[in-house]
């Protein structure tokens, strides 16, 4: 898949670059590529969230954090062998775990035969939402989504308060 190759290239760039400003920009581009991949995988809602959070909000937050630190990343002081080993082992474990996963789009897996089919049948007459994922998110799991929104909103308020306080103390000097 071309998009995944591009994403991998962008990630390599993010790891290699020492200029954090460029890294922020590249991670924004990565989010848009990820959103495209999610759209191709037919998960439009997740893609929308990825674009909103990854490309929109987190770019702004990263820049705000960059304001508090230096633009250039310091060279690593220790050898990367142990983290590399941990990452390779965990990656191998994840690949090993994904071997047992069913084929993409297989209709006869437990995921698609137990609960999911019931929702597929019931969602449009019960909720009137065309997209089943949207109906689950906004209707069947409405309170859960509301709780998530409250959490994110609270986090946003916290970040705003922190940044505001920093600005005021700076203007006093």
């Amino acid at each position: 898949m071309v998009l995944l190759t591009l994403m991998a290239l962008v990630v390599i760039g993010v790891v290699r670059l020492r200029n954090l400003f460029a890294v922020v920009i590249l991670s924004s581009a990565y989010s848009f590529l990820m959103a495209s991949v999610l759209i191709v995988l037919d998960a439009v809602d997740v893609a929308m969230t990825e674009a909103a959070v990854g490309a929109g909000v987190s770019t702004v937050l990263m820049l705000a954090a960059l304001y508090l630190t230096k633009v250039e990343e310091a060279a690593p002081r220790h050898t990367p062998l142990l983290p590399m080993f941990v990452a390779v082992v965990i990656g191998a474990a994840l690949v090993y775990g994904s071997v047992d996963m069913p084929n993409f789009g297989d209709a006869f897996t437990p995921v698609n035969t137990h609960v999911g089919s019931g929702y597929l049948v019931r969602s449009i007459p019960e909720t009137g939402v065309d997209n089943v994922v949207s109906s689950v998110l906004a209707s069947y799991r409405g309170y859960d989504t509301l709780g998530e929104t409250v959490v994110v909103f609270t986090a946003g308020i916290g970040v705003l308060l922190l940044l505001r306080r920093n600005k005021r103390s700076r203007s006093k000097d």
Partner: protein
Amino acid sequence: MMFAVAAFAVLVSLGLAVIRALAGPTVFDRMVAANTIGNGAILLLAVFGFLTERPEFLDIGILYALLNIVGTIAVLKYFRYGDLGHRGGEEPSQ
């Protein structure tokens, strides 16, 4: 067929933009490239919607365009004023 060719062209342009974002010597090259990747994502969204004959995802393209502008303006404002909370409208003090 036409949409498939268009999707391929968009993918190629995405690849070129990624190359520029990785290679770009200055920050502005990378930023324009990131903006182009955002635009490519919008185009890919639209083309893929028509390719799979469900063009109702076009609305999300509008959202992408808005987000693309948010990121670009944030980066530019940071570069110009060195501070996201700046009110703007005047020359930077440094």
